[in-house]
């Protein structure tokens, strides 16, 4: 039994088969990357896994549970966190508040105890802050702690999204193009962090990425996708050398 399995996953938008019978499995503790040309269905797979889209067919299993039909807000509680390709932070809140929101699934207070801010709520708040500070330390975000997100540069926002995902204490981390919009140096930092997340925190990573240097640097296995169908699966070197993959990217 694998850690995470997608079995014959499909979704149609009208007549377009955006994802067409894709099967793959992710082992615990590995970095699994999905690559493919634009419109290949990579982000769609992410949106299926985080349950924003309803699959037309197939099955998703995570850690022994069938997650094909659970509602989207329950995904985080199971231990799946994600980042977004176009950054979906809470822009008019501080970085700290953004990360604290990620502790939502760990909250134990109800509306009325929060209304009166009982000592137990206060205690929980302190605990959440301790957890959040670990992520801030891990990703070197100390100096931005109290800044509003709208005032932060793009690169920092990207890291903030990663930090927010980590604050949910996930078992599986979905990274949607972690290097998009980053410069070479920031991409290198991102590679280090992804490796640290895997090695030090023991979190399994499922990633969509275009930057092949980042893919080769961190991935254990790579799946290439085109027109919603898998082309090849293997180590980064194997997939890059695969004739079908070369044809998909270069044409011919």
């Amino acid at each position, binding site marked *: 039994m694998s850690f995470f399995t997608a079995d014959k996953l499909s979704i149609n938008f009208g007549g377009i088969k955006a994802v067409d019978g894709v099967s793959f499995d992710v082992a615990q503790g590995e970095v699994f990357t999905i690559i493919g040309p634009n419109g290949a269905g990579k982000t769609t797979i992410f*949106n299926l896994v*985080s349950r*924003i889209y309803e699959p037309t067919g197939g099955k998703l299993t995570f850690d022994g549970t069938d997650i094909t039909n659970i*509602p*989207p*807000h*329950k*995904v*985080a*509680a199971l231990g799946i*966190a*994600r980042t*977004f*390709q*176009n*950054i*979906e*932070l*809470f*822009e*008019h*809140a501080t970085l*700290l*508040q953004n990360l*604290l*929101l*990620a*502790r*939502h*699934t760990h*909250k134990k*207070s109800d*509306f009325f105890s*929060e*209304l*009166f*801010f009982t000592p137990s*709520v*206060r205690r929980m*708040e*302190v605990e959440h*802050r*301790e957890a959040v500070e670990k992520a801030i330390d891990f990703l070197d975000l100390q100096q931005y702690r109290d800044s509003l997100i*709208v*005032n932060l540069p*793009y690169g920092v926002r990207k890291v903030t999204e990663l930090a*927010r995902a980590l604050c*949910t204490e996930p078992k599986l981390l979905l990274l949607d193009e972690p290097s998009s919009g980053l410069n070479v140096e920031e991409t290198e930092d991102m590679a280090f962090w992804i490796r640290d997340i895997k090695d030090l925190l023991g979190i399994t990573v499922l990633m969509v990425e275009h930057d092949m240097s980042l893919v080769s640097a961190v991935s254990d296995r790579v799946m290439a996708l085109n027109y919603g169908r898998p082309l090849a699966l293997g180590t980064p070197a194997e997939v890059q050398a695969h004739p079908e993959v070369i044809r998909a990217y270069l044409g011919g």
Partner: protein
Amino acid sequence: MRFLFKTSYEQDIRLFRDRVDLFWYVLLALAVVAVPFALDEYYVGETAWVFIYAICGVSLMVLVGYTGLVSLGHAAFLGIGAYAHAYFLGLGLPWVVALGLAVAITTASGVVVGLPALRMTGIYLAIATLAFAVIIQEVFSRWESVTHGFAGMKVDMPTIFGVAFDDDRSFYFLCLFFLVVVLWLTRNLLRSPTGRAWIAIRDSEIAAQSMGVHLATYKTMAFAYSAGLMGLAGALFAHKIAYLAPDIFTILLSIQFLLLVIVGGLGSLHGAVFGAIFVALLPPLIAILRDSIPASLADLATATGIDVIGTVGAAIGAFLSKPGVEAGVFGLILVLMILLEPLGMYGRWLKIKLFFSTFPMYKAATFKRQKTYMRSERLR
């Protein structure tokens, strides 16, 4: 210049940032308590309006400023609270029980409106709440066995546990008490997971959902809480206005509440209070100016011997007495505010505060925001 060194998590959690902060709030509290003894009875009565409007402001701030849901129908909730409170008082129930029932009924109606609101955002939600307000206003005028329709409903000043709050001074303190409680409760919610979930929904529904926030639950909660506060404000409103009629709770009142939170500054509780000061005190201010400008300019004309000044004064007085001037001034200020100070009065307040706390190193650019165009609308 003052630097704040953080040494414990408590510093971010507690109500007052530091002792300096606390000092100013204590000073403010003393001033507010001193007002009824220093001012004329008339002005004390007008200040009580500020407190009632501020409760309305907090209510709408939670919904519009923090959860990002627009409502054009909040006057209806105010009306439901007012009528329910008056009705139960009329049945002979004790004041506290009547108030509790009024708040409960308004909260329930907030849930009812909140449920369809889950599927709508922005302008569509505004229209839906507007429709709700129109229906409710119709109910107020038709359900005569409860509301007495256009014949109206007289509401006496409250007597709570045998204590009569029958003059402007005592009622002032009653309103102040409820405002402080409302501010405290709302601040508590905003510094705990519920408030953060509301802010998250406002800024990105999709990310909030991915972090485990159940959108439907929290949107309904925001609506219910907001409506409940409006019900409380409604009960005080009923006493203050003394006579309830359906044409009080019109769309214009709803718009005035919206104006209140926008002028005050969206996304801050300070803004709700600032906005309330503005909305509640502008009409009496216009009334005072209407009388004092012609009079003082006429005095000036006789003193200097220039007749034109007297004529100008009379013209200003005549202009200010025209019907609709109030609405016009409100509108003008709203337009100017949105153009010149989108952060509202609270934004201006922050700038003034920063100017003094960083003097002489204030930079106007501190509040400049870069425009960003990278949020995706694909998943909406």
